[in-house]
Structures are given as structure tokens and as C-alpha cells.
């Protein structure tokens, strides 16, 4: 009867994973970054080496969770995240294997972990985007100015689930101390009276439309908007520069080979490709990020590396101090 037929289907489905496992000689990449930024790189890799890549997309943190829970059962070979915090968290949880030195050495040591269990692939700066017509913005020179009462109702922030936002707060917390950061968060909480944004792109949009005077975003969102609307009255303001300034908060997107990868050889090839000049150039061009490999140029329109001051904070701290940052943010009650 029907029930028997159902049972058959059930058994068939149960046997499916085994056959799947044997058939796949493809690399499995857990990618916490947007498909549209990773895909071009993977396609170039496949074209070059003939090794196929399956992208399993999700949020960086939940994929890291999955990796940890799966343990040695995991079929993933590569983990890619948009945030150094997640990379280091994974390294601390011992989820990654060591990347051979001849691959890792292409990346400067401040953009990778000490043990070489993850590499930073592309860097982004946490900047302010300002509306050039707003009279309010001439006094702004630091991200801490966002807590000033004059900016009430004029600032654009993402909600505090955003990884870039959390990483930024971690940097400020180390540079200025916990108390100053708490005061800053409290001040900002009073200032965004009509709510936070769920996307960086919406912040840039709101600043361009004049609804907000200033927003805190990753640098490439500003260019993305200007590409679509070249006449938008917005510009990047690199915060916290000068003698006294702490410098811009910096974060890297990175990749690692998983500890239990069964296709180490191919995984290393992919890593090598991502740090090669070609791969790095692709990362720089698809999203205007700063390639981490020395000698690969960033896109023309972004401020050149070295022309501005960057906060001197080790990337690995973005993972170690994340829970502390989350505690701080939640204690203040940022949405």
C-alpha cells in the first residue's frame, strides 16, 4: 500500500548521503560572505585548476557553529568569514588546520593568526559617511563624536548583531577603555531615536537623502552607492586621524582550512589561489576592499593604504574580546 511505498522513499533518502559523499570530489566551502563576492573568485579557481567548488552560504557565525558541532564529521574544507573575530574564534576552538608557510607568508603577519591557522584575505575600514550639505558635520572628526547631543536624530547605525559593528566596538574598547566606550554607546543610544538600520547600505542611502547627517559604515558601502548615484551628496570621512587620533578601526575577511578536511591538497590549492596576485586582485576589484597581500593595489578610488592612520589593534583580539564587547553592548541595551 501507500505506507510501503512511503517506507521505500524513506529508505532511499536515508541512503542518499552515503552516495553523495562518495561522488563528490569537489571542495566544500562554508562561506559567510555574500555569494556575489566569493563566486567570481571560485569560478576563476575552477577555470584554472579544474577543481569544482560547492559554496554553502550562511551567516559567518552560524557556519562556525555548524563546523564546531560537526567536528570530524564535517565535510567542509574551507571556511570563509567576513570578520576577523569569527576567524580567531574558530582558531581558538581549534577548528582549523595549519596553513603551510609558503602560502601563509604571502600575507603580512598582522593580517593572519600567529599559528597560521587563518589568513586575512581582504581588509575593510570602518569609516564615517557624511552628507556634504549638512552643517552639522563640520565638527565631526571622531567616531566618538556620534554621541554628541547635537547629533540627536542624525546618526545612522546598524543593529548590534552586525559583525562589523561588533568588531568596531571591540577596537574602540581597546583603544579608549571600557568606560569611555560605554559612555559613547549610551550617548549614541540617545541619538538614534528613530531606530537602527538593518543594512549598511540603508545607512548610506539615508545619509545621501539627507535624512541622517552621518553614519558609521564599512568603507566600500559608500563607493557602492556612489557607483549607482555619482551625484549623491556624500563623502567618506576618515575618523580619528591626526596626532591624537586613535586611527580607523580595521577588520579583515579571512579564510581557513578546516581541521577535518578530507581534501587537504585541493583545499591548499584554493588557499594558495586566494592569496595569489590574481585572487587578491579579484577580491580588490569585486568589492573595493584592500587586498592584504603587499604589492596588490586596491581600487583606484579608495584612499590609499598608508595615507591614513589605522588603530593599532591585533586582528586576533577581535575574536578574543567579542564576548566582552557583546556584554557591554547588551548592558547598554543597544538594539
Amino acid at each position, binding site marked *: 500500500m501507500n505506507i510501503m511505498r512511503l517506507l521505500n522513499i524513506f529508505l532511499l533518502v536515508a541512503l542518499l548521503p*552515503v552516495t553523495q559523499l562518495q561522488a563528490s570530489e569537489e571542495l*566544500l566551502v562554508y562561506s559567510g560572505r555574500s555569494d556575489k563576492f566569493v563566486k567570481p573568485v571560485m569560478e576563476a579557481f575552477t577555470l584554472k585548476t579544474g577543481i569544482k567548488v560547492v559554496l554553502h552560504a*550562511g551567516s559567518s557565525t552560524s557556519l562556525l*557553529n555548524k563546523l564546531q558541532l560537526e*567536528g570530524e*564529521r564535517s*565535510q567542509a574544507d574551507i571556511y570563509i568569514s567576513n570578520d576577523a573575530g569569527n576567524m580567531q574564534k574558530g582558531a581558538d576552538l581549534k577548528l582549523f588546520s595549519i596553513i603551510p608557510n609558503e602560502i601563509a607568508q604571502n600575507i603580512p603577519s598582522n593580517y593572519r593568526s600567529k599559528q597560521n591557522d587563518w589568513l586575512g584575505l581582504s581588509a575593510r575600514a570602518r569609516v564615517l559617511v557624511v552628507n556634504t550639505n549638512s552643517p552639522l558635520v563640520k565638527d565631526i572628526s571622531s567616531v566618538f563624536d556620534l554621541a554628541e547631543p547635537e547629533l540627536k536624530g542624525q546618526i545612522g547605525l546598524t543593529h548590534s548583531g552586525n559583525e562589523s559593528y561588533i568588531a568596531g566596538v571591540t577596537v574602540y574598547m581597546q583603544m579608549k577603555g571600557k568606560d569611555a566606550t560605554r559612555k559613547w554607546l549610551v550617548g549614541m543610544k540617545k541619538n538614534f531615536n528613530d531606530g537602527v538600520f*538593518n*543594512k549598511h547600505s540603508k545607512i548610506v542611502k539615508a545619509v545621501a537623502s539627507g*535624512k541622517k547627517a552621518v553614519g558609521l559604515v564599512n568603507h566600500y558601502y559608500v563607493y557602492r552607492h556612489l557607483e549607482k548615484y555619482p551625484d549623491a551628496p556624500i563623502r567618506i570621512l576618515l575618523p580619528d586621524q591626526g596626532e591624537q587620533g586613535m586611527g580607523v578601526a580595521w577588520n579583515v575577511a579571512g579564510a581557513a582550512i578546516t581541521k577535518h578536511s578530507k581534501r587537504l591538497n585541493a583545499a591548499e590549492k584554493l588557499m594558495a589561489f586566494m592569496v595569489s596576485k590574481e585572487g587578491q586582485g579579484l577580491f580588490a576589484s569585486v568589492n573595493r576592499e584592500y587586498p592584504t597581500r603587499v604589492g596588490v593595489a586596491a581600487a583606484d578610488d579608495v584612499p590609499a593604504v598608508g595615507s591614513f592612520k589605522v588603530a593599532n589593534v591585533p586582528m586576533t583580539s577581535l575574536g578574543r574580546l567579542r564576548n566582552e564587547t557583546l556584554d557591554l553592548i547588551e548592558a547598554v541595551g543597544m538594539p
Partner: protein
Amino acid sequence: MNSQLTGYFYWLKSRLATRGLLTLMVVSLASIPFFFVIHSSLQLSVERWFGLWTSRLPDLIWNTLSLAIMVAFGAFLLGVSSAWFIVRREFVGRRLAIWLLVLPLTIPTYVFAHIYTILLEPSGWLGSVWVWLFGESSLPNLYNVFGVGFVLSLASFSYVFLLVRDALSRTHQNLEDAARVQGASSAQVFWRINLPMLRPAIAAGLALVVLHVLSDFGAVSMLRYQTFTLSIYLQMNARFDYQAAAGLSLILVSLSLTFLVLERFFRKRQRYYSSAQSRKVIPKQAGITEQFMIWLWLGLVSLFAFILPLIWMIVWSWQAWIKDMIDMAFWGYVSNSLLISVLAASIAVVAGLPVALYHAKRRDFLSQSCVHLSSIGFVLPGPVIALGILVFVLALVPNIYGGMLVLVLAMVIRFLPLAIQSQESAIQQLTPSVEQAGRSLGAGPLQNLRRVILPMMRGGLISAWVLVFIDTLKELPATLLLRPTGFDTLPVRIWIEASEEMLELAAPAALMLVIGTLPVLWFLMRSGAKHSS
């Protein structure tokens, strides 16, 4: 030795009967996530419990309960009023209205949340109207209890509508007539006769709504409103703190179970019987002004709950279509979604059958506990169920990990309560004498099941299948964690594309969810119509 074992087996079998044994099997499978929660939260030290208690719980309880009350109120208002008009008045386009009021069920909460944040931007469709009317400064913000309450009321009032409509069409006229004869006004009749009679249906509908609120992940995570479910998810996800997540889940489960037991208790005390000879309600023909008023209200409700989101989906899907963005991969997501939903619905109906039969036949402590335990899936947040199953599978049957079976298992466990409840209510309408007649005419238990019981509870089977199908089609959090690699379903794609602002890609997926649900919903409504006539 062997004969002793067989003897024991027969003893157990004689005590429980086959359906009892099967029930125990199903229930123990269904309670995997629950045991995971208990196991993990036992590992929490006393200090950490205390820490959770003081730092998080007061806010979480307040946030969750105020949201539940707000949504219950919203769903009550929308559901009862529209059910009343539909059953008690005859007006032009009544059948269309029924459809418009049921169709919001096809839109997942995260799609609602996503669409309304976009529509309410200053340049969005609703936002620009609002700015024109009231100015930009007062533009409503969805990132708070009112916003989430609004979204969840729209997404869930249809449950109340369906149940109250069913109850209303089954009530009989004579009580109302009696009240009228005694001189009661229409308002008095409503408050003192109709509303009390409807209490069981309203309670059941609101219970469903509240349970959906308690376990909702999509809307609260899109709108960043800290309920138990979101906080549990963040504990797991951002902090890797599974024990705290389990601890919070345990508290949530106890809250929900208390609520469920209370609801069952009150429902049991409120059974109304009506005599068979009484006159059925005939909808009154509405006058022109009344028709206008009815459509004003129903139109407003369905505009926000279905028409506006639908138009949005169509417009953006059209964009995707003309930009040629709908490729083979998209149809792959569609067939993945359908496959998983058909499998989960079919298995859930089969698995739920013995539980429902057992509970309908024996109302003792054991069968009660079985039903309560199997409803765990509805009470626990999706991410926790997924985590529990993941840990269980990896520890005990790692061979099936990474396959579809795990995902199907998770869906069946999550939505088994739906299957059991609708089958149970169908069985309750069977008088035991029917079954006994079958048996006395010489049918064996299986033959009796196949030829008497199953055909008679066909409606219940269908609605069980349809309900599980719809909810699986929309399921997000467990699918995100447990799907086989590269196996993306429509909700997963919506989630990914929406978080990347790719509206052209999120919209067609959402539209396909609506379209995919239509045929089964049509089937359900048709069998329901037959059933009530």
C-alpha cells in the same frame, strides 16, 4: 531466555496494543530535542543559572509576554471580526474574502517583516504615503514591540479566523432566538451568547497564535526584538554558549507547557452541546451600506495581510524575470522545497496516526503524556530543535548526518503536533460503535483501520498533511542548520538574498512559496467546505 523475552513482549503488547507501542516509538523520537535541552541545562552551574536569572530573564519574560499579549489581541480582533462577517452575512465576493483571509498563512513571518521594513522606508510605498500624510518625523519604526506585534498579528490571525469560522458555522440559531425573544439587543446577544459559545474555538486559535509567537524566529530576528527565541539563538550562535541556550529553552518550554495545560484545562470545562434538531444559522443578506462597511474592513485587513505583500512580490519578481535572473538554480530551490515538504508531510501524517488513535481511544495518564511530549516540537524554538537533533544524530547515528533524512526528521519533529491535533479532532467525531461494528463484522484491526477508520477521518488526514506541508515549506531556522550541503530551499534563499538586499531574488522565492501552497490550501478548503455542509 528467548521465550521469556517474547513473553515480555506479548505482555507489553497486550497492555498497550500495537498503536500504543507505535505511539511510544514516535513519542520517544519526537522528544529528542527535549532531552537534549534537559541534558544540556543540567550542566549549567548554579551560579550561571543565577546569572541568567538576574541579567536576562526579567527583560526576556517581559518582552516575550508583552509581545504574546499584543499579538493575541491583534489576532483576536482581526480573526473574530472577519469570521463573524463571513459566517453571518451574505455579501458579494464572500468566497473571495474567505480566500483572502486564509492566504496570509502562506507568507512566512520573516518575509512579512522584510517586506514591511522596505514598504515603510521613507521612499517605500507605505512610507511615502505616510510622509505625505503626516510628515517624515512620525514614520513608524518596526524595530520594537509594536512593529513585531503588527507583523506577527498579520501573519497569524488566520488561525483564529479558521477556527472561529468553523465554530460559528456549527453553532445553532435557537439559543440566539431564545435570547432575542427575551428582549436582548444584538450587542447583548453577541457578548452574552455568541462570545461565550465561541470561547473554546477562540482559545484554541489564540493558543496556536501564542505558540507561534513564542517560537517565532524569523520576524524577531529580522526586527531585532529580544524574545526568548532570539536570545536563545544569539546565545548559541554569537557566543557559542549551548548550555545557556538550553537553560533559557527549558524556561521557555515550562512557560509554554503551563500555558498549554491551562488552555486544555479551560477548554475541557467549556464544552457545549447542541441538540441535533436545532436550526442552523443562515447568513443574513447584507444591505448595500452594510456590504460596503464589511468590504471596507475585510479589504483593509486583507490589503495589509496579503494583497500588499503579494503585489510587492509580483513587482520584484517581474524585475527579476525581465533581468533574466531566474535561472536553473532557482527551479532547483523550488524542487528542493517541494521535495522536503512532501516527504515531511507524508511521514508526519503516518507517524502522527498511532499517537492520535491511541490518545483518542485511551484517555489515561500515559496517553496524555504522550500527546504532551509529542507537542514539544511546537514549543521549542526551531534553532534549538535543530541543535538537539544535530547533537543526537552525530552522537548516535553519524552515518545519516549530512543527508536529507536528518532534515526530514527535524521537520517531522517540529510539526508532528499539527498532524496529531488535526487527526485527533477527526477521530473524536467517530463514535466507538462504528469501529466496533467493523470488528464485529469480522474485520481485523488493520482491515478495520483501512476500510473504516481511515476513510472516515479522511478530512483530518488531509488537513494534517496540508498543515505540515505548509509549515515545512516555510521553515527556516532548522533548515539553515541541518540542510545537506548545497541543498538550498526557498526560505534559505530568501534569507540569504534578503540579507544581501537582493530583492529581485528574494521576491520570486517568496512568491513561489505562496504559489506552492495554493493547490494544497485549495484542497483543504474544498474538503473543509464539504465537511461543514
